[in-house]
């Protein structure tokens, strides 16, 4: 992707977000008492100012994209972004792991969820040390549990099944 293309996309996206904020999000989700006489003191003032500035930056990005003469891709494009569908699959799998962590934390408990998340991520990243990964997946969450629960006094979620001392 070139800087021109990037700025064009970002400019359009930024302007749309700013318009969404001005015409829908701020009126719907920012509440102001009816007795505020001066707009400067209203809770709405600051979000509107920021949304206005966002429009300006969005237009700046668009103007930059339109006036920019060079359309050469970024130098590190190939090395940073591998081709094929596998990277997208791994991203999707990582997103699923994160969702499962959120579900697992209150039900399974933090330690067991962390063990599963560690192992799943290590295999997702195609580790060349599967045995070490499994050992670390078991030990690291237990050590962190010992520190946070018994040294820092944090009430680590224990879940509904196996409770740790």
């Amino acid at each position, binding site marked *: 992707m070139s800087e021109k293309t*990037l*700025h064009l*996309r*970002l400019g359009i996206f*930024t302007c749309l977000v700013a318009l969404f904020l001005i015409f829908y*999000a701020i009126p719907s*989700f*920012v*509440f*102001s*008492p009816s007795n*505020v006489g*001066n707009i*400067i*003191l209203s*809770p709405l003032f*600051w*979000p509107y100012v*920021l949304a206005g*500035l*966002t429009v300006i*930056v969005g237009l*700046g*990005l668009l103007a930059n994209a339109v006036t920019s003469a060079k359309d050469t891709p970024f130098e590190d494009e190939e*090395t*940073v972004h*591998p081709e094929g569908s596998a*990277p997208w699959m*791994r*991203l999707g799998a*990582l*997103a699923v792991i*994160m969702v499962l*962590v*959120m579900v697992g*934390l*209150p039900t399974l408990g*933090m330690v067991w*969820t*962390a063990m599963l*998340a*560690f*192992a799943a*991520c*290590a295999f997702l*990243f*195609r*580790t*060349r*040390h599967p045995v*070490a990964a499994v050992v*670390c997946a078991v030990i690291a*969450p237990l050590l*962190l549990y010992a*520190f*946070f629960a018994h040294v*820092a006094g*944090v009430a*680590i*979620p224990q879940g509904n099944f196996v409770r740790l001392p």
Partner: protein
Amino acid sequence: MSLMDSLAAGFSLVGNFEAFFMLFVGLVVGVVAGAIPGLSATMAVALTLPFTFAMTPINAILLLLGVYKGGIFGGSIPAILIKTPGTPASSATILDGHPMAERGEAGRALGMALYASCTADAVSNLALILFAGWLASFALNFGPPEFFALILFSLTIIAGVSGESLLRGALSALAGLLLATIGLDLVYGTNRFTFGNPNMMGGLNFIAVLIGLFAIPEIINMAWNPVAHLGRTRALGKSRCSWADYKNSFKTIIRGSMIGVFLGSIPGIGAAPSAFLSYSEARRTSKNKENFGKGEIEGVAASEAGNNGVAGATLIPLLALGVPGDVITAIIIGAFMVHGLQPGPMMFILNVDIIYGLFIGLIVSSVFLLIVGSVAIRGFRFVADLPKRILMPGVLILCIYGVFAVNNNIFDVGVMFVMGWVGYIMMRNRIPAAPFLIAFILGPLLEDNFRQAMLMSGSDPSILFRGPITWFFWFLTFVTVFAITRSTLRKKVPLS
């Protein structure tokens, strides 16, 4: 309280094994983290933060400062050995450090990096001790209009951390400012973007946002390309940095330290520009300027002095004004707040023992850095060999535990994950994360002081220009905006 009383109070806080041990541990963690490419000093400080919750404030801050200083030096190890800077601040070290490693002089380059770092660190700490108190006493005259002008000025210097595009940096900062509006309104207590969720009424958790922005994108990036990090390490070689090398580069080191102190004391600039400025000045004035870029030891000294000179100086605006000098000090501000401390001029009156305790700890940190750094140079191989595909899942679960521990709230873990994806999308679109975080911290302060000033004056905006202090910051703001605009236009239309 006299200076001696303040020093005695400081000694009473840090004059124990535990405080110095924490500082030492922090330096070890920082050097190790800095030496692992992809695990930056920022990430290391952010990941260490949750471990400090159960500590006393002074031990917690010393630990984090140790990680910070260790991380900045540690970044030079992979920069010299595998041409991969452990931290952005070490980018300039590659220019001459890696060619030296190619010639089999890695040991000499690393030795110079260490000595230059320790010298610059000591100079920077001295500057902090001399200037922070003076600036804080001056800042006691600040009211809401003065703070508004100061924070506005700090926001304009976000340009310095915007990287390759000012517009993308501005977009990032605006996103941070918008995110900071979530929660109850500061004056009227009405809901803003809380969507009826009580977890959002206090605003988004700062630690969750920062860990999400800085640590999680690296993990997501690992999923995108698990083999991107693979590189070849080099032998240290038999050469060492001699006293003559140090003596010949001493002038460069001191100049680099001064540049670091000057740029570090201005909020928002950070270590990387300082390292490059120091490097270019060394090259301009050196007798061996034709060797720069081909493995000149003076180049290594200049860049390392430049980036380490920033470390102590960034604490000047943090301690004196409560304004973060860079991303790492923004995290350290969070640590102060977690421990019930509010950095700023009042801290020099209410918590003078902590201030002087920190000063003492910082002086000792330069000596500890020399010891830890010497060992790290020999033992780097074990650090560099940590399999990253096991390290990153470890970082993930550390993030989960750490973020949960802040408020004992699973919602914060969700915020961290969401911010992680936001950070990753920003990374993929070359939008820098640093302006986002700085704006997220400064946003509420800017709005709060603006509205307080308006309440004081009955909505008369002239209060924002009420005296010499506000004029001074408005002047600096206009000068900075002018300089940024001019440099942007020059970049756009290159002079032939």
